[in-house]
């Protein structure tokens, strides 16, 4: 079944996204001789605010730079050339756990920002599933670009590919706390894959099915306008224009990666000198 929402006045929409970057791998030996891994890295998170009739603008942008160590002991690095690292410890000793922690922190920051914007009346659309939106009462919408596993029974799953641009599937329940639906946001070309331009939306259940329905209709109405442009972004059209631009802006705001790595190396060196002295 395909639902084509009636054209609506686009509501002011806020697209929230984040980027993160590992800027160096660290290790240290614990007192018992075990090798503990850490990472230095940064994330940035922000929003693009789109109001009808106005040039989209960058909303608040937040960045953080961390040194994250496994094994439960934080390691503080001295600041270098304006670079500062917040020291964080995690219990896990898995090699990729520190980078995973950086990703988690970025997603949390995205969730916080989306909630704040939603509370201010924006139609907040956050990149990725709603896992890190803690409030279940705000109509924050998660936008999922990739579809790894079918969420619907096979006969319904097959129908997703028949959606036309600007149409959505009916809402279905996802887990215990979310509604979801598929939306096509771009007209597929003659040789496009059947799922070209399909994104999945997620909304919290707590506001009720009516609010959820109204919200996804608004989002379905808004999204095709912002669909990504193929020659500009390899992830188009699912990666929306504001989101693509925001990611670039955020990466710029993280600064030059090689300079950050250099600063981290100097900081580690100084830290080592201080410890041995």
């Amino acid at each position, binding site marked *: 079944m395909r639902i084509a929402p009636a054209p609506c006045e686009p509501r002011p929409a806020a697209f929230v996204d984040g980027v993160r970057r590992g800027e160096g791998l660290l290790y240290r030996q614990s007192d018992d001789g075990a090798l503990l891994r850490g990472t230095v890295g940064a994330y940035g998170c922000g929003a*693009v605010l789109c109001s009808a009739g106005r040039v*989209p603008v960058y909303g608040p942008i937040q960045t953080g730079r961390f040194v994250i160590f496994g094994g439960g002991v934080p390691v503080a690095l001295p600041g270098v050339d304006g670079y500062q690292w917040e020291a964080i410890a995690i219990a896990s000793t898995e090699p990729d756990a520190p980078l995973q922690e950086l990703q988690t922190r970025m997603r949390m920051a995205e969730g916080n920002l989306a909630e704040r914007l939603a509370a201010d009346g924006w139609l907040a659309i956050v990149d990725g599933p709603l896992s890190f939106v803690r409030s279940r009462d705000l109509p924050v919408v998660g936008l999922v670009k990739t579809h790894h596993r079918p969420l619907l029974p096979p006969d319904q799953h097959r129908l997703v590919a028949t959606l036309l641009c600007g149409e959505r599937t009916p809402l279905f329940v996802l887990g215990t706390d979310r509604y979801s639906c598929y939306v096509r946001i771009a007209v597929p070309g003659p040789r496009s894959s059947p799922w070209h331009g399909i994104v999945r939306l997620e909304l919290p259940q707590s506001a009720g099915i009516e609010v959820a329905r109204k919200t996804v209709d608004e989002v379905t109405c808004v999204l095709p*306008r912002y669909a990504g442009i193929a020659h*500009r972004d390899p992830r188009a059209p699912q990666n929306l224009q504001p989101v693509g*631009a925001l990611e*670039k802006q955020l990466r710029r705001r993280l600064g030059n990666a090689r300079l950050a790595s250099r600063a981290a190396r100097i900081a580690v060196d100084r830290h080592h000198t201080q410890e041995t002295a």
Partner: protein
Amino acid sequence: MTDITDIPNDRLGAIDGAAAINTRRFSVVLDDTATVQLDELVVSRQTLPSGVEVAHYGIVTEQTGVIEGAELPSDTRHIALTQTMPGQTSRCAEISVLRTDPELWVAPNPGATVAQARGADREKALFLDQMDGGRLAIGFDQEQQPIYGDFSFMNGVQGGHVSISGISGVAAKTSYALFLLYMILETPQGRALLGPAATQTRALVFNVKGEDLMHLDRAHKNLNDERRAQWAALDVPDPQPFGSVDFFAPPQPGGEQGEQLVSSAQSRPSATIYGWTPERFIREGLLRFCLTDSDDRSTQVGFVEQVVRAELARHAYPLDSEPGAVVICDEPHSTSRTFERIVGSRPPAKSAGAGHVVRDFYDLLDVLDVRLDPDGPHNWSGNTQQGTVMAFLRRIMALAPRLGHLIRMGVQPVEMNKAVTVVDIHGLHDSAQRFVVGALVSGVFEEKQATGREPLRFVMLDELNKYAPRDGHGPLRELFVDIAERGRSLGVLLIGCQQAAGRVAEPVVRQPALKICGRLDATEASEYKFLTAELRERATRFLPGTMVCSQPRIPVPVPLRFPFPPYATNTGDAAMTAAEQAQGVAAFEAL
């Protein structure tokens, strides 16, 4: 004038650190609220690690803008038109450094704030604190704040001469030259700078186009309050026409001896009719300014001219009872053949019967015809080839209809008795124009060789390329090169205009301390090395009234404008006086 010293400096933005900056130029990322125009003056301060505070003063030379994030032209459409993509507009102003104070060769700090230079900062930026020899307003900027020139570079103390370039019609060269003369001669500031010699200072102005400059003593009818305000900005509250001007016009060609002379200046019948009596022509050796075509000098003709000039002087005696006329006698009054020695003393007058009487140019031609006859009894031409002598005669004969009417009885010499002397040459043939300019300018220059720098003599001449062309040689070109090189210490200051500096003898456009350009011809602009690349390009788009001035004090040329003239710059612009109006009405009634 309002005192703006107390207005706090306005921040414009910060020095862009995204591109390398140097000691000569930098770029300012403008604040969203900042508005700045080309040619505005800015200042940026920094404290060096040594604790010394340094200020960089600069001038805005260009502005750029970019939407950051837009990588393809179509991105701009998505950002600005369909409004589906965010972008951040950045505006930058490019600055050329005018001055570092104190004079330290350091680059400004990237990221340092930049403010508009106002009040004392503006004065520093324009080196006003260093203009010890006095300063004279030579125009104003976009905000009608005056821009000053260092007077010691205008009066010959440290430098002199003004060169004004630009294409005809829109560059306003003559207007600007007159404006400068006005500021020097007519304003209290200018007269104060001239000092005790102010009343003796003279300007010789050649009128080369229409009868435009023959009305400088009359008010301009279109001077309104708004235009008066421009003068007020230069501290000239009540601009008036030139107060002390003499006008000279050539006689009309033709007419027999003894007939009433008719002035050729139709819109200025009262102008004095100028010319040279045969005696003055001969004794001042003006024959040398008759043959000024470049091909006249590349042959032996120039040599014949020298010989003839000296022989004429040796054989010419004043005519008894008819001042100005001469008698050419067989007997020379001097044994010397050096011209300067021959004219060192005046021979006694003789009566008409003593020889061949010369009352005008045609009489002179008759004399030369006889005296240069190789078979005649008084051959002046020596051993020169007959062909060369004939070539000389042919050239002199050809000049008769062109400048013959200037050498006759009854004409007045051009004497600089008033502050400004306007000499009309616009209707004359090229050869005659060169003759008049050569005769008068050499007269001024020679007079000043003996009297020292002050009182100053300004010579304002348009179309310099006619008189001092880049290629070739001749007495006129040499005269101007000499003035360019030595004139400033002798107090002879040239205010020269030309359409293209590249066509004028190199010292004549290189020596001037003040170099001014109006609208330039695009094919020519590359000649003006003293302009920055941006200004060269911009100067091809200047509107009339916008000029750019390069002066020794300020390392970067500064664009400027100048006020509307209070004096008429052609016949139609002159406001009628009450008497003239009454006269017009009376003439109409009489019809």
